[in-house]
């Protein structure tokens, strides 16, 4: 009962933060001379009122669920792993690299996914080892690896996996290694099932296995976990590796599941920032796999709607990330709702009766 109540409370907090995010972003829009109402109507209408729009929302949610999981597993274990961005680049390109061989359909996709997962793990390994053995802050090491990965990815796109006929992109993923499209005419591929399944797997792992218990114990109280016999080094490496798998697969869902080209372009336009957006999604979803699925669909919907918003209301689509930033800032406020409750109490009750105080 207590658990149900606390998760309801979390959901409510996220909803309030979401409203706050939209409101503050609306003020910014107004300040720049745009119409917030027109923008928001376009935003919502595009993605949440018809099937094709909603398919777009799900397509955008596909990688975000996975990169959010990367962050969330870390957060549950007390690690601030913000390295999904670089791991995702590596995963996207490794999945493309699998197209250098010929394999039968189906098997080829699986091989490509394994490549992507391994690449993600490899890219998370150095920060993991540095953290586990030398105590180097993962905040710094993962960001450095994101930048190293950024330049390595640019190099790989331009020199190694380059399309011999079109220098601005990699070779396209082989037909046999692509995710099939789920709804014709949309970007939505079977990748969404991979994302959701992985999120459910992590949910099961965290709350129904011994390993998951150790991870959460390490996050909740590192000292107590150590006394309890949890080997923190093993947990750190495991958490990073799982996160690397998730981020690598996120990259694969983009390079193997996004029509029409199924390739990565120089400058990484389709995959850049998916790792960082995942952090925001994880926070909105309160680092819970189920919350993350919902938050990713919400944010993916905003992204899908942003294109229509730009066309009809003339509002730059980057506005959506402003909304996300404000939501995360609102969630950083502890007991956000308590502040609201306190405000409400003060407004509705005479001062002399308000000494009930904040619990």
């Amino acid at each position, binding site marked *: 009962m207590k658990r149900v109540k606390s998760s309801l409370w979390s959901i409510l907090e996220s909803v309030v933060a979401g409203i706050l995010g939209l409101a503050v972003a609306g003020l910014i829009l107004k300040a720049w001379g745009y119409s917030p109402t027109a923008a928001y109507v376009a935003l919502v209408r595009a993605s949440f009122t018809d099937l094709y729009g909603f398919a777009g929302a799900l397509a955008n949610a596909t990688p975000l669920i996975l990169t959010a999981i990367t962050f969330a597993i870390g957060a549950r274990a007390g690690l601030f792993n913000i390295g999904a961005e670089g791991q995702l680049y590596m995963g996207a390109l490794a999945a493309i690299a699998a197209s250098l061989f010929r394999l039968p359909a189906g098997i080829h996709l699986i091989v490509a996914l394994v490549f992507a997962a391994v690449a993600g793990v490899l890219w998370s390994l150095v920060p993991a080892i540095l953290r586990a053995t030398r105590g180097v802050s993962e905040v710094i090491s993962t960001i*450095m*690896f994101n930048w190293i990965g950024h330049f390595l990815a640019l190099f790989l796109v331009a020199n190694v996996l380059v399309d011999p006929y079109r220098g601005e992109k990699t070779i396209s993923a082989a037909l046999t290694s692509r995710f099939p499209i789920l709804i014709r005419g949309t970007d939505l591929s079977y990748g969404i099932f991979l994302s959701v399944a992985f999120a459910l797997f992590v949910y099961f792992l965290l709350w129904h296995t011994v390993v998951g218990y150790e991870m959460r114990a390490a996050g909740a109280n590192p000292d107590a976990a150590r006394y309890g016999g949890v080997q923190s080094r093993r947990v750190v490496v495991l958490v990073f590796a799982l996160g690397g798998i998730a981020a690598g697969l996120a990259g694969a869902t983009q390079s193997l599941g996004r029509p029409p080209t199924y390739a990565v372009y120089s400058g990484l336009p389709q995959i850049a920032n998916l790792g960082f957006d995942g952090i925001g999604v994880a926070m909105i979803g309160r680092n819970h796999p189920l919350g993350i699925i919902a938050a990713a669909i919400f944010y993916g919907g905003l992204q899908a709607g942003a294109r229509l918003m730009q066309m009809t209301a003339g509002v730059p689509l*980057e506005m959506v990330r402003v909304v996300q930033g404000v939501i*995360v*800032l609102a*969630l*950083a406020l502890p007991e956000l709702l308590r502040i609201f409750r306190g405000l409400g109490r003060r407004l509705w009750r005479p001062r002399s009766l308000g000494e009930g105080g904040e619990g």
Partner: protein
Amino acid sequence: MTVKYLWSIFFLSLHAMVPITLTAVGEVVSETAGLFDIGLEGILLLSAFTGALGAEAGGWILGILVGIGTGLVVGLFFGLVNAYWKGNQLITGVGINLFALGFVAFGLQALGTPGFHSVPRVAQLPKVPTPVGGLSPIVFVALFLPFLIHWVLFRTRVGLWIRAVGENPEAADVAGVPVELVQLLSTAFGAALAGLAGAYMSVAWMGSVTKEIAAGRGFIALATVVFSGLNPLLTLAGGFIFGFFDSLATWISNIPGVKEVVPWQFISMTPYVVTLLVVTGVIGRVRFPKALGIPYRRE
């Protein structure tokens, strides 16, 4: 010829050092008071953008002031949330970074120049001519400030308060130090320096704003703070190491033959690799305030 060449490398490194050293020395003050701000990257980005707009509206003086002001406002917000409301410092920092990423990209797009916005030459901060090349006046500020901050932190009552608040907030509280206020002002001061660094990048150094202008410098500054062990003077060394490798890419491309052998992408990686190596090397030898990152709650 060779001497002139060395001077130009040295000056390039000095210019690249400025944003790191300014941001890092500000963060030294914030972390000494116990607040860990990973939103520096976002502050650099935001103030580079607002600073550029300010410079275009009213010259470089206004640009620099707007940049500092932007940092200050974000820092006051960060301090309010974390010193007073005991929020989550890491999440606040990430929120600032995400917000900045969106806001600046949005702003650049709204200005009709998605991706790139250049600051007109007349609005840029002119360089001070020296016999061996021009130097931005902000370089001198960045070279001087660490000494001033070192003196304040270790030789004045204000510095004692800041250190006490980060080391043992309970004791500081009992001794009558306004813990929250000292934390708020320390982190706001640090953020204002990051704001100066951001405005320097767009108004003085590069003369343009892009979405990627910060390029991880906020996090490299955090790494520099680790390297410094909260000694303001060492932010000069840390900043210079990064500045040197940052400018490496610029001058190495002038050496004939090198570009053909080493792809530019690998040269561009070096500052990040070096930062990681340096941090790994010093870890364990530095000590941080006991209460760093832990919200202070009066019992």
